[in-house]
């Protein structure tokens, strides 16, 4: 009986370990607010994130020809980069309101449908965020929590 309980506890702990839990969601919300910043800092943050994505998957630029993905300093691309972070901002801010979050994710999924975005592009986005965020935040950031909650959002947009 005891062993069973311990086993059960482990399973529960494991199940919670790679989920974006309630406390993790709150953590991500507040850390994102600092990282996302405002004004020029926000543009530069977006710039760094997108450069890191294209450095990993150069072919992804092909998806952004309409917004001048060949030059991340082009005003059209800057606008686009900010728009994408804006979408991420909405989802992160809704992390503690599950219904509104799933509505937003459904909306974003519809926007991305038909663009044939491979899963590894979402992975590149995640890697990029996990590199730029600690540079922006210094010590006070939680890599595991970011990994879990980004996966939740990305899977919602991918639709699987």
């Amino acid at each position, binding site marked *: 009986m005891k062993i069973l309980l311990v086993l059960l506890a482990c399973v529960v702990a494991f199940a919670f370990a790679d989920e974006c839990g309630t406390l993790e969601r709150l953590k991500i919300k507040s850390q994102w607010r600092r990282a996302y910043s405002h004004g*020029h*800092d926000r543009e*530069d*943050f977006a*710039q*760094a994130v997108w*450069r*890191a*994505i294209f*450095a*990993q998957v150069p072919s992804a630029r092909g998806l952004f020809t309409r917004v001048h993905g060949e030059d*991340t300093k082009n005003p059209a691309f800057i606008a686009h980069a900010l728009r994408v972070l804006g979408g991420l901002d909405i989802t992160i801010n809704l992390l503690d309101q599950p219904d509104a979050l799933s509505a937003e994710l459904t909306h974003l999924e519809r926007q991305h449908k038909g663009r044939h975005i491979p899963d590894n592009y979402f992975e*590149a986005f995640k*890697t*990029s965020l996990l*590199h*730029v965020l*600690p*540079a*922006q935040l*210094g*010590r*006070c950031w939680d890599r595991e929590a970011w990994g879990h909650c980004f996966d939740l959002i990305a899977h919602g947009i991918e639709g699987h």
Partner: protein
Amino acid sequence: DSLSAARKIMWRLLLLSALTGLVLADSKEGHGHLDIDPRLRANAARIINLERKLNSLKKKLDDAEKIDPEGFIKELDARVTEVEGTHCGDKQFQCGGNEQECISDLLVCDHHKDCHNGHDEEPSVCDTSPAKAGNIFSGTSHWKQCLIRHDHVTKIVLTGSIRFKDFPSRIWVRANVESDLVVGNHTEESSFKAKGYYDFGHRRLVLFPTKEFDDHYSVVCEFNHGDAERADCHRIQADTLDECAELHVILQGHH
């Protein structure tokens, strides 16, 4: 050294005997008595004199190497720049030159020119040597608050470093921070593992204690002396950024 000095004397003797031989051979044919050509003798004396001058010049060259005017100017420039301030935000880098332009430190040394003058990608800015794995920095810590401690020696040993291709404007590092504490009448070593990063834009090395060493204070070093060997460091409380101690470190060598 003595060997080269002996060799020099030997050369001189050889030179003299050669000259004498020449003169002797010459004189046998002529007057038949030992007589050195005064011009040759004067030349030999001049050569010996020249050699002495060369030696003293060599010594002066060795002395000149000890004072490095370029390094001196660089240091002075770095100090004046620091006092002047950059007029940039906390997270920004000053491009310098006549344009005085500020760019984000996230974009410094990322292989894209963001300053109009390209200063953010120059080799002097993107020098990776402060964050090389194996670097050992050492200095004396002076605590002002947080802990009651006498001044003690602190050693920072960089144990690992990695720079990601997709985001090269930081070098991620691991380090051991070791302190020799005087407790009673013996010294004890206190050390902790840390991880952090080097930020090119601010020439700043930031080290946070890892989870198992949570009770230690972070180290923030700025390489603000115009070289990669000396840094002004602070021990800080990572959450509040309050300063606890200061130490000036010098590169001691490599592991």
